[in-house]
């Protein structure tokens, strides 16, 4: 008997109705003793335990509870009624409560949506986790110089032959997304942006399952093959079967111009780090033995199971060191593997396929999401506890009449539940309203917002549920702890402990609001700065056109004639001031990156500096107002009756460099560099002597936020590399008139080509897209945080005012003026805000400093980043709390002093 477990008694007592407990336990013990004799001690004990558990059945634990149950059910309905009445009774208060929670929940889920999207990048391949990109680091004497996402062309073969642990390897190069793919189908002309991806069948081995139609092995085998994406196939071929269709495509070699669609691939989803609408075979552009001189292939491998990227990188670098003897370009380079799934958030190298996201931003966003939600909860608690002054009496009466604590807790929870349901409904409403505008805010296309990152959503929901329950429990505990007798006497206990907690919460809110406002200010400052900074060139009133024949197979003579026609026609109009042609325009990436192709002497050692080459006509520098520091501009092409080859022009072997370039070459001043002869390997296979005829001031060609790079200007005489036409409009004429004139000139020069133009200032500003999005996101969430924070202040002042009613009344009786009382009540808030400012300042400075350090040109951190948020917050808080404070200060003392 002694050996019977003690818990069985507690268990039975818990589940059995009081009047049945004794006899049940007695029966159990009797049977146990009977069985000890018949089946033995051990078995009897087991059966006893089993029998105990068998009493856990509705027939037992629900017995005789019916009478109280019906009462509880009735009471629950009454609780709902009370909850409803309380909500309706104080409409403004309930509205604040519900809106606060709803806005918090909405903001939380919107940010989670963003976070989940950012984390979902490149996870749609079945083998995503085993795919790696091989990047290339270049070193100089003083350490790492650049890291690039493109690797040597020979790497593919090297891996295929020597690395059995690699399942598949592929390499491709991709034209920038803003270069058009120009072709003709069925008499219609297409000029589609997005760029083309040049690769071979290995692409589908590393990235499986992309091909919808066509044969993976042969789809890119022949030079005339071409693959299009599903959406592009729909656009170009409509309902026709795309596979097998012929299109005409110009080709810079002047060779093949007919291509056959051999397959269709799935569109790359929005959460892919690469996008393309066309896939073409890898052209054999490299001469034999040249695979190790130029790094231009994005190289990806998929590893077999159980192999680690470090091991592969190490082995690869051993190969590189061995081969460096033969190929000088490899000498100071290092390859490294990079997991595919980490590219979007963790990689920021040169030659990235697309601008990547930022891990920090995702972390910050998640933190902001959580903080906003927590602030919303804090506010709910603050507002609820603030109302308890009025509630305490009700609770005390109920307690004295005989309500069980559990019943009261249930009542509070039901009230909270009603608020919660209302706010979640409101949040859902808000979200359905906001989500369509969400892509405008963040740049995330709406259709790809997906649930792929299930764990993130599970965590988010768990946070919401657990948090909501905790928040619901807190006020109940607070109220239930009250001593009914004391609170009936009017002593509403507000312990100093509870007050400290509440103040801490408010300080956190203020600090977060200050930091978020400061972030918006810093971003705005930097963005304004970048947009208005002296770019050292002029993009206003410029219309740009793309030369549709730039890379076409048409005769250079014809191309030149077409351009001459366009230029002459344009210049006839009074709306056009100047025309220029070049291989790139400000804001476009310069495709020609030359490494080790420009040197003082042919025998100089290998130099990894990257020079970018821009082909321009003699108008380019004056057109864009680029400052010539020394020397002179290119002369105009020799006026000739008939077209001549560019290299026959006397100016062909001349160069203009920018400041960075002459410094990279070791010249000390522009004057020193002018008229010097340098060795330059341009389009010939060997170095030629070129004369530096001028030096221009550095300017931000691709983007203000990028470092200025060394630039080489080379003349584009003839029709050589005339890709863009820039047209400066007469500011006096209307843009509509000017565009009409340009269209007419265009039709005269290119009768069968589509007319597409863009205004350069808009185009150039596109580089600020990500900053603009980030700023908008922060602006909205700063607004939300401040909004919810204001609700918190409202609750706080309400609480303070009601808790200090008696004090205020006495002060009034003794002669305090309303204004001095307002001061008294506001002093606390001001003190809290100042304290928050002290806490927030170092954080603001740290964040601003860290963020700004990513820009080569940046604004200085000014005290305004702290003063302005502080001022905004003070004004807002003063405004919000004023209603309550004034009301509290102008009470009639009699009302609050008579009940003692």
């Amino acid at each position: 008997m002694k050996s019977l477990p003690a818990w069985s008694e507690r268990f039975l007592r818990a589940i059995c109705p009081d009047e049945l407990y004794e006899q049940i336990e007695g029966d159990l013990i009797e049977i146990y003793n009977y069985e000890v004799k018949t089946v033995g001690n051990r078995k009897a004990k087991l059966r006893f335990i089993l029998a105990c558990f068998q009493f856990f059945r509705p027939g037992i634990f629900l017995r005789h509870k019916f009478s109280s149950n019906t009462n509880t059910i009735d009471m629950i309905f009454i609780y709902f009624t009370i909850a409803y009445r309380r909500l309706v009774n104080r409409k403004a208060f309930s509205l604040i409560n519900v809106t606060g929670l709803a806005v918090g929940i909405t903001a939380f889920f919107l940010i989670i949506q963003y976070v989940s999207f950012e984390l979902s990048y490149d996870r749609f391949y079945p083998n995503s986790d085993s795919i790696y990109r091989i990047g290339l680091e270049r070193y100089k004497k003083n350490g790492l110089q650049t890291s690039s996402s493109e690797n040597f062309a020979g790497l593919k073969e090297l891996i295929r032959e020597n690395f059995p642990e690699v399942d598949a390897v592929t390499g491709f190069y991709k034209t920038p997304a803003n270069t058009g793919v120009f072709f003709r189908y069925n008499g219609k002309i297409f000029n589609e942006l997005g760029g083309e991806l040049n690769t071979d069948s290995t692409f589908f081995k590393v990235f499986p399952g992309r091909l919808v139609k066509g044969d993976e092995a042969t789809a890119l085998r022949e030079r005339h093959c071409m693959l299009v994406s599903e959406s592009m196939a729909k656009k170009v071929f409509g309902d026709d079967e795309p596979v097998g269709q012929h299109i005409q495509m110009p080709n810079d070699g002047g060779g093949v111009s007919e291509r056959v669609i051999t397959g269709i691939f799935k569109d790359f989803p929005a959460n892919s780090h690469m996008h393309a609408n066309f896939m073409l075979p890898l052209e054999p552009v490299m001469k034999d033995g040249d695979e190790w001189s130029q790094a231009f292939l994005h190289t990806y491998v998929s590893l077999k199971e159980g192999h680690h990227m470090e091991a592969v990188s190490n082995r690869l670098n051993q190969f590189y060191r061995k081969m460096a003897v033969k190929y000088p370009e490899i000498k100071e380079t290092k390859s490294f593997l990079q997991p595919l799934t980490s590219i979007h958030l963790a990689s920021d190298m040169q030659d990235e396929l697309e601008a990547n996201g930022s891990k920090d931003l995702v972390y910050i966003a998640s933190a902001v999401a959580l903080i906003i939600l927590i602030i919303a909860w804090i506010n709910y608690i603050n507002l609820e506890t603030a109302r308890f002054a009025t509630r305490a009496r009700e609770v005390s009466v109920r307690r004295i009449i005989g309500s069980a604590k559990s019943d009261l807790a249930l009542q509070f929870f039901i009230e909270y539940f009603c608020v919660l349901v209302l706010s979640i409904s409101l949040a859902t409403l808000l979200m359905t309203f906001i989500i369509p505008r969400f892509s405008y805010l963040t740049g995330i296309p709406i259709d790809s917002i997906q649930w792929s990152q299930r764990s993130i959503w599970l965590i988010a929901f768990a946070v919401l549920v657990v948090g909501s329950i905790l928040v619901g429990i807190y006020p109940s505990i607070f109220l239930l702890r009250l001593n009914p007798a004391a609170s009936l006497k009017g002593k509403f206990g507000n312990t100093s402990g509870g007050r400290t907690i509440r103040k801490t919460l408010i300080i956190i809110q203020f600090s977060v609001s200050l930091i978020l406002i400061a972030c918006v200010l810093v971003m705005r400052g930097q963005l304004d700065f970048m947009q208005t900074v002296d770019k050292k060139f002029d993009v206003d009133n410029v219309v740009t056109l793309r030369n549709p024949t730039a890379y076409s197979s048409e005769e250079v003579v014809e191309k030149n004639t077409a351009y001459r026609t366009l230029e002459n026609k344009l210049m006839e109009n009074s709306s056009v001031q100047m025309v220029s042609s070049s291989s790139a325009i400000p804001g476009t990436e310069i495709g020609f990156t030359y490494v080790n192709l420009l040197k003082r002497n042919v025998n100089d050692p290998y130099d990894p500096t990257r020079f970018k080459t821009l082909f321009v006509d003699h108008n380019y520098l004056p057109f864009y107002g680029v400052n010539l520091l020394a020397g002179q501009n290119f002369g105009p092409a020799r006026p000739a009756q008939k077209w001549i080859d560019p290299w026959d022009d006397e100016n062909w072997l001349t160069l203009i460099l920018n400041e960075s370039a002459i410094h990279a070459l070791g010249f000390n001043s522009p004057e020193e560099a002018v008229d010097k002869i340098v060795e330059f390997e341009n389009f010939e296979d060997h170095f030629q002597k070129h004369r530096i005829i001028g030096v221009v001031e550095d300017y931000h060609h691709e983007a203000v936020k990028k470092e200025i790079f060394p630039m080489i200007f080379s003349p584009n005489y003839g029709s050589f590399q005339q890709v863009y036409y820039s047209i400066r409009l007469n500011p006096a004429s209307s843009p509509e008139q000017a565009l009409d004139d340009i269209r007419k000139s265009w039709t005269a020069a290119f009768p069968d080509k589509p007319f597409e133009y863009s205004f350069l200032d808009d185009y150039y500003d596109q580089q600020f897209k990500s900053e603009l999005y980030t700023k908008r996101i922060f602006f909205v969430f700063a607004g939300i945080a401040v909004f919810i924070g204001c609700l918190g202040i409202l609750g706080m002042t309400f609480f303070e005012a009601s808790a200090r009613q008696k004090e205020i009344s006495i002060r009034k009786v003794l002669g305090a003026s309303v204004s001095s009382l307002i001061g008294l009540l506001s002093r606390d808030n001001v003190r809290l805000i100042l304290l928050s400012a002290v806490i927030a300042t170092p954080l603001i400075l740290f964040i601003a400093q860290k963020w700004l350090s990513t820009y080569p040109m940046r604004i200085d951190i000014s005290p305004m980043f702290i003063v302005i948020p502080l001022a905004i917050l003070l004004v807002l808080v003063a405004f919000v709390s004023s209603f309550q404070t004034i009301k509290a200060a102008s009470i009639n003392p009699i009302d609050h002093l008579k009940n003692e």
Partner: protein
Amino acid sequence: MGKEFLNEFEELILTLVAALRENSYGAAITIEIQQWLSRKVTLSAVHVILYRLEDKGYIKSKVGGATNERGGRRKRIYSITNAGLAVLRSMKETRTKIWKLVPLLKIVNS
């Protein structure tokens, strides 16, 4: 009488309550069933049935004495009410009537 219905297990326990008289309580009934019918029953099932029968008014109960075997816990002694007796009797009679309708069959051992 038509509405009254007891299932087989209820009928068995009601009969046992009637038969055990002063000694009819949960444990005793459970052990009796095991001995008479060699059938495993759980104590909790017996208790639930007893409460149900009590709710229907077929049995009534009073608190009885405690014994050492029960660890000093008092037992609840059940006894059959007139209503219970009537229902039991009517069920038995009905069954006998039906049984009489069965033709006398000889069980043939093959």
